[in-house]
């Protein structure tokens, strides 16, 4: 067992589950999507990204890339949220909620790719 691998797999999986938790619910209903969950997903995703820094293996590079994609999407979602609620002082409308959730769904897809890659890599290394 490799502690580094355990930690990395943990963060990748946690990023996926938190992201999934945030996305789950009606896409245009603000009450189904809590800011704390988006925040947690973003933080965990950032940590997962940093953990792949400096990995020169081909799989490591793709993992870093997919993880960066997830970060980008989540940050974009958070920025939209902040601009609408704080910048313009409006409450979350269904339209804004939809765009926030769809962006984090993109991140969810990137996180799924990461997990799939991780599993594949484990199998290849086992052989």
């Amino acid at each position, binding site marked *: 067992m490799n502690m580094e691998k355990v930690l990395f797999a943990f963060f990748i999986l946690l990023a996926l589950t938190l992201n999934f938790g945030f996305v789950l619910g009606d896409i245009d209903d603000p009450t189904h999507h809590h800011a704390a969950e988006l*925040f947690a997903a973003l933080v965990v995703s950032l940590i997962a990204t*940093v953990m792949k*820094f*400096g990995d020169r293996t081909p799989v490591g590079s793709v993992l870093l890339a997919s993880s960066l994609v997830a970060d980008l999407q989540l940050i974009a979602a958070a920025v939209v949220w902040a601009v609408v609620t704080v910048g313009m002082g409006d409450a979350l409308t269904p339209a804004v909620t939809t765009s926030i959730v769809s962006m984090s769904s993109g991140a969810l897809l990137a996180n799924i790719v990461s997990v799939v890659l991780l599993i594949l890599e484990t199998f290849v290394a086992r052989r």
Partner: protein
Amino acid sequence: MRPSPAPPGAYFLVLRRLRVPLIVLITAYAVSITGFVVIPGTRADGTAWHMDFFHAFYFVSYMGSTIGFGELPYPFNGAQRLWTLFSMYATVISWLYAIGTMISLVQDRGFVQSIVRNRATHRIGRLREPFYLVCGYGEAGKVVTRFLSEIGERVVVVEKNTEAINELTLGELPIEALAMQGDAADPGVLKRAGLTHPLCKGVIAVIGDDQENLKIAITAKLLNRGLKVVGRVNEEDTADNMRSFGTDHVVNPFNTFAWHFALAFNSPGLHLLNDWLSQTDYQALNEPVFPPRGRWILCGYGRLGKALHRKLLEQDNEVVVIEVNPKQAGAPADAITGRGTEAVTLREAGIEDAVGIVAATDHDANNLSVIMTAKELNASLFTVARQNQHRNAPLFEAATLHSVFNQNFLIANQIINLLTTPLTNEFLRQANKQDPEWANEMVSRISATVEDNAPLSWVLDLNAVSAPAFVLAIHSGYEIRLGQLCRKPTDRKAKLASVALMIARGDELLLAPEDETVVKFGDRILFCGHRSARNRMLSAVTSSDVMIYLLTGRHRIISPVWRRLTGTR
């Protein structure tokens, strides 16, 4: 299995080292932000409020970076201040940790080296001009690099030693040489230094160690078959080994010097001719040397000593060897044990009736001491000494010797000639087959032309690219004789200070051609003479105006206005 990762470059090293500090920083921020979101605040009127994520991030950002705008949007209550206290230390310490890691990384020797190496690899990869790869920046490497740079060639130097690399980067060369620090015997380092670069013209292995040069030569021939490889060797068996796999030129300074020196016995003229034409520096004209035959005393039976011993015996001399450790050096049985720096040893060797002395040890001070002592005992000696270190040049100059063996200059000269003027080498090879009278005749012709300076040799390439005016004249039906090219562009009655040494026409070589020789398209002519003659000759073959004047004596009118006024074309 996963392929084993290559050694990390600077970029990856930074990212890898920053992993932990960045994770610590992100965690500290995340915990602090979460705390501010969770802990309820109190407004002035006593009602509770919750900070949202945006404001929490905003607050933590300016707190963590110790900018500090105060407590926003309302003054904090006790619980919030307690949390602020915790967050402050957590975030500031995380920042210090991250920044500290960065700074220690920048100070890290390995890191700095890998950055420098990466940058060098990058620059070499982007070279858009032909270059030579010089392996080893020792005494010989320095001279080779300087010479190449002075004749306008780009050089990439591979060297292990940091000090030598620093000297290279600080040294003022006319064309900056690129440095790659690393072991040239490592194929990876050679590749990074541009061994497989399409514009690499040749590899010059001038490390002091034979085995390393051998390794470089093999690597170069295996990884880039078409490359010209020049290797320096000290032992003849390494030389044979190198030639066996196709190394283009093998330079053995000891054998070269011994051969060259022996030439002076038979044909001082030929010796001088070799001297002049293999010189890369534009120095004062060397005087011919006439080494006498008789008893020679040879101090030091090392690599140079052995080579000279053989050659001196071949020239019917009696040779007495003085050596500190005759058995170990494999000296002849009658060798005298000693350093040769003391009068006793020299007397034992019969210095009084010797004709010449050679100080051939690898110690400069000892060599000079041998010569000085010997001269006191016998002032008429012919003196030859070996100079090992470049910085001792003034001492050897002051000692007024008949001949100095300077290994590094010899190696550098030979390499430059082999690489840049192959025609000169061809000429010398032909000339060495001629008899002494022929050589004396050549020498007197050359010295009459150049007066006090050493002759410069150059090649006139009569092709469309380097001699367009010549080609045009040939196409217009002119028959051009060699003598017509060697005239002043300002006055065609005056001859240029030049001597034609050889014409190379296809596989045919015309040695010492006469002025009446008709030159043809595609000829390559080797000249030697004064520097100014070279430039004038080049102007004749590139400018049609000069060419027409030289052939016909008529000036073409250059100004279009004057041409129209006079009605000429």
